[in-house]
């Protein structure tokens, strides 16, 4: 059982823990997608490229937040650990989609990830004390919701197509 | 009607009887037999009423059809008698002596179709048209639309669009 999973049982976490997990979540995803780009066929590369780009924005967001003294000041505070945290934390690990995943595999992974992130950030946006961090979670919750919707549309168009 | 047709068929070289609803029928007769047929129908078979006399232009066949519509009131029978005449030398035989009112019909046929009825009273007097110099206007080759376009001015400012062509011009101008 990992540290985070242990902490999950307590129901509480420090802002720092949450913050670090989220930062790692975005970093791993960005790295994963970026590394995937050359491994997928060119016809689906657009998809992976788009996903990598979105994650990069989020990484930059956390990097900037960590330099913010207001955020630094509340790092030790405790807040409720989100219910979705388990699923979210699992996403910190690099997935195994095989050597040459197809569009559907990438999409299904991305959808699962966005879904977890959406739930996580939505809860955090509610429990984090007001301030730039809360604003960031609100922003991210909205972002991930939009991404998820966008991905689902792409999924439908890609997978449920040509059926006439 | 069939009885009369059977009776007169040989004598007046009638074509087949073409019955329609009610007491109406049509039959074709050669021009030479028309007079004899009309006389017999009028005097022997009760067809005393000349309903109308008019012409039909079968331009493609080079023929005019003269239609003499006779009616027997007592038996409620109406017989349309067709006489086909040459369109180029259009001429019919006057029957104004049998029905004076036929002179009016013949005058109109002369004016409107250019069909001659030698001996018919006042045949060449203008009837409906005054100072008409064009083709007899009820001939098929008189183009009433062209005449009206030459004679009258269109009001300016009218333009219309065919829906199909309009949609093409707006939605797929290069055809795809």
């Amino acid at each position, binding site marked *: 059982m990992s540290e985070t999973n242990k902490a999950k049982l307590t129901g509480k976490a420090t802002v720092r823990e949450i913050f670090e997990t989220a930062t790692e979540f975005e970093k791993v995803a960005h790295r994963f997608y970026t590394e995937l780009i050359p491994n997928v066929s060119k016809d689906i590369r657009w998809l992976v490229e788009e996903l990598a780009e979105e994650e990069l924005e989020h990484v930059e967001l956390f990097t900037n937040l960590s330099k913010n003294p207001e955020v630094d000041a509340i790092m030790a505070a405790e807040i409720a650990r989100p219910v979705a945290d388990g699923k979210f934390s699992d996403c910190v690990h690099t997935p195994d989609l095989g050597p040459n995943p197809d569009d559907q595999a990438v999409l299904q992974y991305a959808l699962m990830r966005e879904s977890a992130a959406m739930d996580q950030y939505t809860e955090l946006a509610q429990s984090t004390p007001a301030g730039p961090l809360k604003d960031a979670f609100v922003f991210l919750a909205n972002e991930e919701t939009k991404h998820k*919707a966008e991905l689902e549309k792409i999924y439908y168009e890609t997978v449920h197509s*040509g*059926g006439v | 009607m069939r009885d009369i047709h059977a009776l007169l068929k040989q004598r007046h070289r009638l074509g087949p009887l073409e019955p329609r609803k009610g007491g109406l029928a049509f039959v074709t007769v050669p021009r030479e037999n028309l007079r004899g047929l009309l006389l017999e129908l009028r005097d022997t078979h009760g067809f005393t009423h000349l309903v109308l006399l008019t012409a039909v232009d079968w331009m493609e066949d080079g023929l005019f059809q003269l239609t003499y519509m006779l009616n027997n009131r007592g038996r409620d029978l109406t017989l349309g008698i067709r006489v086909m005449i040459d369109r180029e030398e259009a001429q019919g035989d006057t029957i104004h002596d049998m029905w004076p009112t036929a002179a009016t019909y013949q005058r109109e046929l002369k004016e409107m179709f250019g069909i001659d009825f030698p001996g018919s009273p006042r045949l060449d007097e203008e009837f409906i048209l005054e100072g008409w110099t064009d083709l007899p206007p009820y001939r098929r080759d008189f183009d009433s639309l062209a005449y009206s376009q030459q004679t009258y001015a269109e009001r300016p400012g009218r333009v219309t669009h065919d829906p*199909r*062509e*309009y949609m093409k011009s707006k939605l797929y101008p290069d055809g795809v």
Partner: protein
Amino acid sequence: MGLREVLTPFTVWKHVFDDPVTIKQPIGRPAAERYRGFHQNDLDTCIGCGTCEAICQNGAIDMVAVAGYDPEKGNSGLKPQIDYGRCCWCALCVDVCMTGSLTMSNEYTWVDTDPDAFRFVPGLEEPWKDDEEGYEREGKRVLSGIERIHMEEMEPEARIGNFDEIVAGYSRAEAILEADRCVECGLCVATCPAHMSIPDYIAAVRDQDYDRGLQLLYETNPFSEVCGRVCTHKCEGSCAALHEGDPIAIRWLKRHIIDEVPFDRRIELIGQPAEPTGRKVAIIGAGPAGLTAAFDLARAGHGVVVYEALAHAGGMMRYGIPEYRLPYDALDRDIGVIEAMGVEIRTNCRVGRDVTMDELRRDHDAVVLTIGLHMGRSTRVPGTEGAGVEKAVDLLRRITDGEKVPLAEQIVVIGGGNVAMDIARSMARLQKAEFGKVGITLTALEDIDHFLADPEEVVESREEGVKIFDARGPQEVMRDAEGKVTGLRTWRVKSIFDAEGRFAPAYDQSDERVHAGSMVIEAIGQAADTSLLGAALTEALEWNRGRIKIDTAFRTSEPWLFAAGDAVKGPDVISAVADGHRVARTVMEKLAAREVAQ
């Protein structure tokens, strides 16, 4: 002459004290309720079909553009403008109106010193435009037919045990009656992807001039046997007649024309291709797009070779559409005409295996890629891996090839499109032949009103015993301890799209169901198998969200390569035909300009 006769007339002097019977203010006297006064037109209902203009014996009506009303599907956007210097108030335009938008007010007095004021578009700003009273036709439209002429079809009991064609086709008498209903507005032409001359070929049916009809069909579509049977007939969805009755059976009339012209006569009527140009074009894939392009190119005198991986030409028309909808001999006749134009079709020749892209490029002036979508998609829900779960397109292909396909007494199909219906009904026939009864359950994400399948497919499927469960989201293919499929677990779909119309399925997890069956067939979608391109070409080509990128003229980023059909555009036969024409035109322009790089 008696005195009485002199005096009696004077008795009428009694009227001298009567009130006058004349109306003091005749201007403004309201007319009767059904009086035929100035027109009214509900501009939002008017589809600009111009039938009012066609019937007007005075030439009083012009169809004009009005700001704010643009052409769209089934609506030209034009509106009638009436010249009251010509109008005779007969109201035939009202009686013939296809939507009932055109009516009349009972307003009949109007004074204006400007004569041009009496020429206007009703419905814009006249003071009476919203008045209730005035002439409206009584009941339904009577000046053109409301009801479609019934198409004879095999009864469900007769058709379920075999793959015989269901639809009988119109007799001449029936076709004439159906063709008679068309008002020749031409609103359908814009909707047809190939812009077929629909009103003109319907007129040919009325005139019983099938030679002319066939020539019109071939001007825009070499697949009339096919489209006359299985076209998605979007044209009928923009038919002016559907607003108050059934749309014209455009598809059946097309089929009727082709039914009436024998095969040899078709080739005679189309005539010989142009003199050979010496130019060569390779086409990959003998589906509707490829063969249409081949037909056009061959007609223009170019040498065309079509490379087909499967044993027979036709693509999805043969391997996707079941025989009961499109008999193979009908398809063969369409293809036969194309071959008669000098097109060579090399079947069993898979590009990438039997011949390489490089060879094609080297030996031809241009290469056209029309490979379609032959790879079935899977939901990839748990349990879909392994035996007992099949993809619809694979099964349909194997049925066409005469193979013995896996079969079970109870089968669950996933999907609500036409492919799902095709496989459900095909398997139902095989079940009926094998087990004497049908056991098919079909589940789909969409609710029944939003099925992608044609409504008649849904009706006929049900008639044949297919049980349809709509709005069900597949969650798992259930398997027993031995791994055998036992059914499909689904959740009810609360909504499938979000407020903005985007796919975002929301499930009601409390409404769970297991649809029993020992076989699951997935028919949710297809993809193009682009592996034939090879890694280098795949890398060299530009792509657009998973598809080979093409411009509006169907050029890829490689100057020698063109692509069309479902693989790049979709979604149906008639669209593929339209694409085939377009890509052929582009290729010919290239050939003419001698720009095609070797």
